[in-house]
């Protein structure tokens, strides 16, 4: 039996009606999409122009040092993602739910890494750990664990510092959109504050939390300047962005582009996840 339409339902819109607003906004959208696509097409066309056979492309992409860079990028960014989630969910919750003195100031400070040029993060880390205190910390870490900072640790530090603020912003916005009365009701029914957070707020904010984390992960994978300045490019710390730069330094633009296309695919996958988690879509 066909359902009767109620007064609250509307027939689907067939498409934007052609008025000034729709033409302008869709036109700009089209222009922007065209520009992004032209960058990608230019990269692929460059390979074609140089008589770059697919077998050569595949050989460069599967060279041991390139595979090692891809592997290290994936490992380091996933560790960074774990740390980002660990920090940004509670911090976002605190900024959303708790009122305290200096809330505006703290809220602003949390945004500083977003506006700071990433290379300053690298320079600051280099200066910090080049100081006598910093060297003592690094020496202590080395004696205790055998790990130096010019290692996976340094890479994760750089990625984390550049990307965590994006996730904190997204988490705060997600918690802001959850009615806190629901948590209050949960607590009147016997939930602890932790229970209200974990069993009410987080599930309701989950789409936004995950989308924010994925965006932060995509940001972390692309971190370049701080890693160049603080960690360096030795073989055991080479990630995709620094590998791209190294290939460019010796004129191997086609290898740079090959690695860039891998990064593009990874970012596209991440963005597909973000859009799949768009508001209104059920999390199953």
């Amino acid at each position, binding site marked *: 039996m066909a359902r009767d339409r109620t007064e609250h339902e509307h027939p689907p819109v067939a498409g934007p009606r052609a008025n000034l607003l729709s033409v302008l906004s869709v036109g700009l959208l089209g222009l922007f999409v065209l520009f992004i696509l032209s960058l990608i097409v230019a990269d692929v066309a460059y390979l074609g122009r140089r008589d770059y056979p697919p077998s050569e492309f595949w050989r460069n992409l599967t060279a041991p040092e390139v595979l090692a860079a891809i592997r*290290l990028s994936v*490992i380091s960014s996933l560790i960074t993602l774990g740390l980002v989630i660990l920090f940004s969910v509670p911090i976002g919750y605190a900024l959303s739910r708790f009122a305290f003195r200096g809330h505006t100031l703290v809220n602003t400070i949390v945004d500083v890494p977003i506006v700071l040029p990433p290379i300053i993060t690298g320079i600051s880390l280099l200066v910090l750990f*080049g100081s006598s205190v910093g060297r003592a910390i690094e020496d202590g870490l080395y004696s205790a664990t055998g790990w130096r900072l010019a290692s996976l640790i340094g890479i994760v530090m750089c990625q984390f510092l550049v990307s965590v603020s994006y996730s904190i912003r997204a988490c705060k916005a997600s918690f802001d959109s959850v009615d806190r009365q629901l948590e209050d009701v949960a607590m009147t029914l016997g939930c602890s504050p932790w229970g209200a957070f974990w069993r009410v707020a987080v599930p309701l904010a989950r789409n936004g939390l995950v989308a924010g984390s994925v965006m932060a992960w995509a940001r972390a994978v692309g971190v370049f300047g701080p890693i160049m*300045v603080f960690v360096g490019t030795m073989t055991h*710390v080479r990630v995709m962005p620094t590998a791209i730069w*190294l290939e460019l330094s010796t004129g191997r*633009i086609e290898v740079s582009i090959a690695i860039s296309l891998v990064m593009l695919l990874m970012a596209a996958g991440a963005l597909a996840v973000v859009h799949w988690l768009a508001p209104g879509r059920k999390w199953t």
Partner: protein
Amino acid sequence: MRTTHSGRAALAAALAGCLLLVGCRGPEDDALVLYAGAGLRDAVEAAITEFEKQHETKVVVDWNGSGTILAHAKARNSGDLFMPGDVWYVDELHRQTGLIADKTSVAYFVPVILVHKDSTKNIRSLADFVRADVTVGLGGPEHCQIGRLSTKLLAGNGVDRTALEAMESLTVNDLGVWVDTRKVDAAIVWDATAANYSDSCRAIEIPKDKNIISHVVVGRMTTSQHPDKARQFVAFLASPEGQAILNRHGLRTEAP
């Protein structure tokens, strides 16, 4: 229960992650640490491969721009060898920190004019740089050795650099990329840089009597934990075998 499954999945992922982390810790303590200019990578990596075979010594290289490796050497206050693609930085590191024990010239850098093979501008010499239809790329005079030399070189060939409105780069490698991608018509680069673009570009020689030659220098650092091995590496680069390897990968080892 869902929570338990999530917990087990997280633990499995963490364990898998730990296995994958093997090898990410850092270089072994007995490895030589070399700070080197990224543009030298092909030649120096080939030399290192042979050196490691013969001497059973691992060499770990931090490739970067000359300015950044200077910052690394200064901040970390450690390392065995310093080999920027720009001799000025060896002296500058020593001036700022006193960290260079000794330095050895292992190759020559000879400036050449780099043009794209498909260029129709018919550029033959530095005199063509003043033409209105020619866009020129030069190293920044305060950023890289090729930039510093280019000013003197152009003056010696009757060209005022300031009148050129040239695009300025931070490194000599950027100039190679610019010519290769047709961003500029011509640039002054090292012969070794030009060799990286031999597929798409060609190098025009500058007459010997009007050219200024530079050097690739490797500095042995006072912070070296393995001074004898560091000396061995420098000696290897300067040896006939080492010189032949550098030469095969685009570095000029005979006096021009």
